[in-house]
């Protein structure tokens, strides 16, 4: 029952990227973890095999099997942080894959026996909703910040770097490049803007990165949904580049957070002693994310930008691009510049220490790939021959980048680099709390804020209470239970006159 891996070039490059990203994470895991690291590596290898199956197979049942396996293995990875996260993540993802199971079976029963192009928009939409939870589509993204805030960067790197992209890779196989999908397109625009704004206002580093992931996923969704070849290949390119960049980003940030002991971006600068190479790396990653010219992110953004139909959407897109610049510049500012003293930053530049495992094996390869792909996008021609037909105007890109940077700098200077108050709770907690307070309006009006408590309290206790009520309603005295028998007999005997 081995999955049939098609020799589709797209599938190949995706699998190669996935393996690369996962290997980088394994290197970091080997260095970072103290307990049971061999188990983690084994788990990661199972995860690796299962996502290869998910990407490569053309049988729906194998695809779904692999998908569930990805769910299982990634949730077990949270065990190195906290067992409660395993429980929560698994519940959310299993609910998501239940919808996916339903969607896939509807699709099969409409005559699409194999994973491939689906012509009906309705079925595409069903699949999109099915994939939504794992791919953090707008409306289903609620778990992303909540889970990332409490887990380590290692699992975040795997999740944000590759797992959330699996859904989009499937959509690449399903949606026709020339037609696109409106639902995906508009969801993407919403994600781009929403994620950008949230990231700009966020204080916690991990949550900021989670929202940044959301906005970048929005770009991918726009590309796939736009219905042009430009957008399609832009999305493919962006999946590859974002996977690499985010993995590297999360690994480095995790290193920083572990050493400094805080997630608050305003405090990081004071507590962490950056080396020169680390600064270069982080600058490289952030600029690639925001799409500075000569870095790989620029190319994919350029392609996606070219796919947009009207001027209005173009303006929105530019706004989204600006937001990306805003939040990355702000992040860089607060990461390195302690309480607005630029001089301190310059003093640090003579720390030439190199952290071998992270810098040598993870950062340098990623930086190299970003640079190479940024300047020679035709390197991928073997897998994506269509890239040859696009020309990337690096010259005009310089102007654009400078303009972006300038505007972003001015805005941020005006806004005093967006110094917001740290929110103690995520919006999902606030939402749950509001519902809980609404439900318990009489009696205890103010409940203590705590993600754990709220999930346990609202979800679990609510469900048990409800089922307990149902149980007590149905289970009455023994004689009541027995009297169902004559009732039912009478119903069946009179059936002929009832129907």
């Amino acid at each position, binding site marked *: *029952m081995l999955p049939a891996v098609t020799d589709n070039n797209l599938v190949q490059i995706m699998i190669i990227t996935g393996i690369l990203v996962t290997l980088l994470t394994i290197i970091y895991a080997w260095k970072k973890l103290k307990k049971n690291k061999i188990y983690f590596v084994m788990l990661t290898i199972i995860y690796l095999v299962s996502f290869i199956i998910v990407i490569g197979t053309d049988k729906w*049942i194998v695809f*779904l*099997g*692999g998908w*569930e*396996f990805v769910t*299982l293995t990634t949730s077990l990875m949270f065990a190195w942080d906290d*067992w409660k996260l395993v*429980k929560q993540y*698994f*519940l959310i993802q*299993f*609910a998501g894959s*239940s*919808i996916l*199971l*339903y969607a896939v*079976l*509807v699709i*099969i*029963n409409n005559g699409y026996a194999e994973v491939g192009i689906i012509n009906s928009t309705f079925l595409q939409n069903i699949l999109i909703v099915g994939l939504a939870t794992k791919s953090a589509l707008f409306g289903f993204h609620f778990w992303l910040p909540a889970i990332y805030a409490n887990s380590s960067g290692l699992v975040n790197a795997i999740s944000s770097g590759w797992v959330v992209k699996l859904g989009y890779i499937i959509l690449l196989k399903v949606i026709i490049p020339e037609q696109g999908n409106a639902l995906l397109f508009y969801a993407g625009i919403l994600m781009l803007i929403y994620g950008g704004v949230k990231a700009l206002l966020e204080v916690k580093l991990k949550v900021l990165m989670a929202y940044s992931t959301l906005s970048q996923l929005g770009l991918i969704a726009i590309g796939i949904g736009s219905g042009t070849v430009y957008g399609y290949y832009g999305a493919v390119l962006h999946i590859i580049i974002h996977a690499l960049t985010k993995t590297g980003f999360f690994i480095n940030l995790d290193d920083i957070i572990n050493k400094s002991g805080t997630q608050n971006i305003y405090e990081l600068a004071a507590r962490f002693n950056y080396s020169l190479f680390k600064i270069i790396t982080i600058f490289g990653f952030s600029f690639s994310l925001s799409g500075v010219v000569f870095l790989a992110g620029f190319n994919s953004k350029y392609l996606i930008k070219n796919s947009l139909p009207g001027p209005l959407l173009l303006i929105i897109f530019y706004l989204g691009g600006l937001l990306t610049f805003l939040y990355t510049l702000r992040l860089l500012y607060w990461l390195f510049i302690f309480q607005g003293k630029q001089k301190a930053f310059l003093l640090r530049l003579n720390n030439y220490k190199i952290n071998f495992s992270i810098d040598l094996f993870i950062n340098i390869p990623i930086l190299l790939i970003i640079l190479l792909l940024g300047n020679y996008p035709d390197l991928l021609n073997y897998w994506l021959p269509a890239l040859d037909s696009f020309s990337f105007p690096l010259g005009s890109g310089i102007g654009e980048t400078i303009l972006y940077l300038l505007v972003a700098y001015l805005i941020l200077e005006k806004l005093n680099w967006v110094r917001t108050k740290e929110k103690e709770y995520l919006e999902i907690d606030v939402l749950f709390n509001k519902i809980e307070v609404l439900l318990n309006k009489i009696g205890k009006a103010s409940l203590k804020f705590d993600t754990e408590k709220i999930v346990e309290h609202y979800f*679990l206790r609510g*469900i*048990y209470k*409800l*089922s*307990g009520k*149902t*149980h007590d309603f*149905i*289970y009455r005295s*023994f004689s009541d*239970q*027995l009297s*169902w*028998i004559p*009732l*039912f*007999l009478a119903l*069946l*005997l009179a*059936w*002929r006159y009832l*129907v």
Partner: protein
Amino acid sequence: MISISILLLIIIPLVVAFLIPLLDLYNKLLRRYLVIIGGVIEISISIYIIISYFSDLKAGKFFLTYYLGGWGPPFGINLVMDSVSLIFSSLISFALFFIIIYSIGFIGHHEGKYYVLFFLILGAMQGAILTGDMFNLYVFIELLTVTSAPLVAFKRNKHATEAAIKYMFYGVIGGLFFFVGVILLYFNIGSLNMAQLAQHFAEIENNMQLTIISIFLIGLLIKIGIFPFHFWLPKAHSACPSSLSALLSGVLLKVYLYIFIRLFWIVIGFEFLLEFNIASFLVYLALVSSLFGHVFALQASDIKRMLAFSSIGHIGMILAVFLLNTETGFYGGLLHIISHLLMKTGLFLSTGYLLQYTKSNHIDDFAGVGHQNKGIFVGFILLTLSMIGMPPFIGFFSKWYIIMAFLKIQHHFGAIVVVLGSLSAVFYYLRFIAKGYEKIKLSASDLKNEIYNRPILSVFYREKLVTTVIYIFVGMIILTGFSFRLFELPLQEGIKELINPQNYINLILGG
């Protein structure tokens, strides 16, 4: 083809059952060997049947029969084994063999009575599956009730005795309805042979047909434990020793399902259920029952009760998917019968092991169990993963085909119930798993309490046997998950028989 081996399937357990008290007079230690020999013989007969008639099975003409006393149909009682019965019969031999081995390590007291009743149940189950005579079927059903009730009360405490009384009340009423149904069939047709009844059922007057159908329905729905009649099930299945819970919940319910299938697809044609519009009503009833089962399982704080409620959920699901009367439906249903048998039996057996280390079945006492018994608890988790439909376990594939069957005929309610069921299963299993991994700190008074309240019989006679059986079941769900296509051949043959009952009639009556 006439073969005495199917008679042996019934006779051997009965012989073993009645030999046990005699052997006890001589030497009580020999009992365990006799029991194992009985199980081995039973399973080897099943294997013999499969191997020697495999070519028939492949050619699609597998059919064994035996005439008791040499009286051919329609006069005497005849035993019949077709592909559907083959699946069920060999599954039962297989499951019961392992439960017997488990019991040797698990049941430490009153073993003699236990095994006598156990083998009587085995014989009655094989009989109920293999018989081709309506009244004989009734006798076997009553035998199942009478022999399983004392085992439900086996623990001899208040809870167990109440459970047995409740079980008996429902069982006797169900059996009585079944008796009335058999008598009505006899009065209207004049025969008790299933094939002949099937041939002539259409000739009965319309009103009488409906009456017969509804009376049989009540009798069987009580036995299967579908929603308005499920009240006995969780209590009975949670009160008995775990090895017996595995038997009742994992195996016996499937026997009643088989009787339901045999009755409503072969004896009374399914077209009559369609004619009276009962079929779609029953589908919804079974689905509602399934939903209720899963919802009730959410609140159960007794782990065995939770598992029993989950059984209600799964059995309702299987019944509903059968009642769709489509090929995919039969395939999904039969596959899920196999997978649920393996999973639920394994779950109850592993729970039985874990509960030996706790004070009671309550969830609060379950804390820390996962740290004490690491291997078994991991097995328990794998079994629950299969239960909620995770690959590569067999539960995933059977769930897939069941939802497929519902969606193929655009029955969205059914598909949603199945999905919701597995979703709620995540909740109720996770609750126990999280509890099992909870760290416990014992204070001095707790420790005292722990020592004094420990069940006296928590010592296993052969702990190795118990754990081995559990690991075998865990291994089975993984193995069958990878190779569920192995069942393709008997399942497809069985489906052919269900779709074309005329074949069965012809083979028995020699048409």
